């Protein structure tokens, strides 16, 4: 059974006059011992997915899902206390920008000790307990590869270099011995030596502790280094998912292709100083979501049919939702309307149209 199982997660925001789907049918699973990368740019909704999992969304936002389960238990049906227990012991999150989630006025030693659940401190008397806490904290720092534990425990967050603070955040997340670690953009803005260190650490934890990791990022170099599987999000929709290997080899969705193209190091044949292939435009904001496939207005292959949300199809564990997948020209039913709309015909994409939305929402 999947540790974390999410099917058709949709997040509704009620705006003035219209309801926006900030996430639309996001689907993925996280298996025991798996490292899964959740890939997306800012505005793709990856942070919203994380918040939906940990239950940190504002209450008036409506979350609907066919499944949102942890070890088979429905997270959406749980009461506050049950959910808190899971978050306290089973799922740990390392947020973006570690320094902003630490208390700037408290020494790190104290903050790390605070993250240790009470039941781990077994000694009876408070002086013994304090000593034990300290030992556990030291152990945690050793586990993440920090040897100068005394120095950093006596420092304040602002004194930490980026790599150390990231490692300390991971150490604190590990304090409760969780089953799942959610790393939200952990390698953003790191230079390559620090990055490799953090990635090595995550890999080691995965191997030795059988820790499942949801690695949320858009750093494709980092992702290909550690992840087993990838789920790509664009603008709140799951566009493609599968094994890292098959996505890299044969991306089926134009967006995945564009992401891979954006990494010059992936293309050995690329001439230096030649322009990089990039989709034009930027990810639309929530107020201006296009109808149907949300990549539509930027997609080089878009045709008339794309104003309907493509359903998720699967070949050999490789899932994609695109009407005209790359590398698969024959797949899918031939649509007679296709021929009339060659690529030269610019298709106008209207802003979200509720009628169309409903039509396409059945699968």
């Amino acid at each position, binding site marked *: 059974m999947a540790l974390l199982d999410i099917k058709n997660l949709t997040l509704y925001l009620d705006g003035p006059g219209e309801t926006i789907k900030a996430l639309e049918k996001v689907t993925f699973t996280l298996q025991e011992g798996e490292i899964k990368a959740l890939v997306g*740019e*800012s505005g793709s909704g990856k942070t919203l997915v994380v918040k939906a999992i940990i239950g940190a969304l504002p209450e008036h936002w409506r979350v609907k899902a066919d499944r949102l389960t942890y070890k088979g238990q429905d997270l959406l049906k749980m009461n506050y206390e049950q959910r808190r227990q899971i978050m306290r012991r089973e799922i740990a999150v390392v947020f973006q920008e570690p320094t902003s989630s630490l208390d700037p006025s408290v020494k790190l030693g104290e903050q790390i000790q605070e993250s240790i659940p009470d039941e781990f401190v077994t000694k009876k008397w408070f002086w013994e307990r304090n000593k034990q806490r300290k030992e556990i904290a030291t152990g945690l720092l050793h586990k993440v590869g920090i040897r100068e534990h005394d120095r950093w425990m006596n420092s304040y967050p602002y004194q930490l*270099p*980026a790599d150390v603070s990231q490692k300390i955040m991971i150490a604190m997340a590990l304090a409760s011995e969780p089953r799942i670690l959610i790393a939200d953009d952990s390698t*953003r*803005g*790191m*230079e*390559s*030596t620090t*990055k*490799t260190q953090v*990635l090595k650490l995550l890999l080691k934890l995965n191997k030795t502790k059988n820790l499942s990791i949801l690695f949320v990022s*858009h750093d*494709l*170099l*980092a992702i*290909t*280094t550690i992840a087993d599987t990838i789920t790509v999000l664009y603008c709140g929709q799951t566009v493609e998912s599968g094994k*890292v*290997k098959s996505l*890299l*080899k044969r991306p089926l969705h134009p967006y995945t292709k*564009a*992401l891979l*193209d*954006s*990494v*010059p*190091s*992936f293309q*050995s044949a*690329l001439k*230096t*100083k030649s*322009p*990089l*292939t*990039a*989709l*034009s435009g*930027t*990810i639309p*904001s929530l107020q201006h979501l296009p109808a149907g496939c949300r990549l539509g207005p930027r997609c080089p292959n878009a045709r008339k049919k794309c104003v309907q949300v493509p359903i998720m199809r699967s070949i050999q564990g490789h899932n994609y939702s695109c009407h005209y997948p790359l590398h698969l020209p024959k797949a899918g039913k031939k649509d007679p309307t296709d021929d009339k709309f060659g690529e030269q015909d610019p298709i106008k994409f209207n802003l979200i149209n509720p009628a169309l939305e409903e039509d396409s929402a059945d699968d």
Partner: protein
Amino acid sequence: MTKILCVKDLSYTNSRKTGLFSAPRTFVLGPISFDMVKGETIAIIGNNGAGKSLTAKVLAGAIRPSSGSITFITDETSQQSSHSHPIRMILQHSSSAMNPALSLGSVLHNTLKLNTRLDEAQRQEKIKETLKLVGLLRDHYYYYSHMMSDGQQQRAALARALILDPKIIVADEPFAALDPSVRSQTVNLILKLQHELGLGFVFISHNIGIVRHISDRVLVMDKGQIIEAGRTEEVLADPKEVLTQKLVQSHFSLVERHASLV
């Protein structure tokens, strides 16, 4: 190749008293020397705290160096107005660098007003040209910073830098905070501008992939010194210093994993 910039023995010393009795902490930058030719791209790499940003600031004139010189070699024939600034800087977080209370148009307008002797009509013309150059629309004149996407902000930052017709642009981690597609667009825009205007481009980056793709030369910094310098492909193929080797190897170890998969 025409030389446009000559940096000689540039140094800067920063000492800060941390306590009443403790010795002041000193950071010494430099001496740094290098030349730059027209249209060249120089990348500065190194670990955090190596003095890369400080170097960029000293180059851009935001910090006065303790000693040394920065000389611009201008060719007489150029029709650049004499009051234009030869080096302009782009900050890492272009979104927070622009005054949120002013529209892009007024920011550009003020920049021209304070730095040039152009009259109103000329200023408007210049703004129009510059917006077009960086791929923005005429309408973006009226946009405030919160109305623009990441990519547009990046273009706005470039517009602010370019409006004074600089010869060289210095950028501190211009790509780090950007999403992949915006990053590729920005890289392409910079390549295009360099091609069209012969701009020199100095940038700090930890993204070795991009450094390799767009830079001609690379300077490796550590503890305020340039420890290694040379043509990018040579330095990356055969790094001499331990630090450079580490930076390069850790990058290629990430790339190798990708290569083994496809």
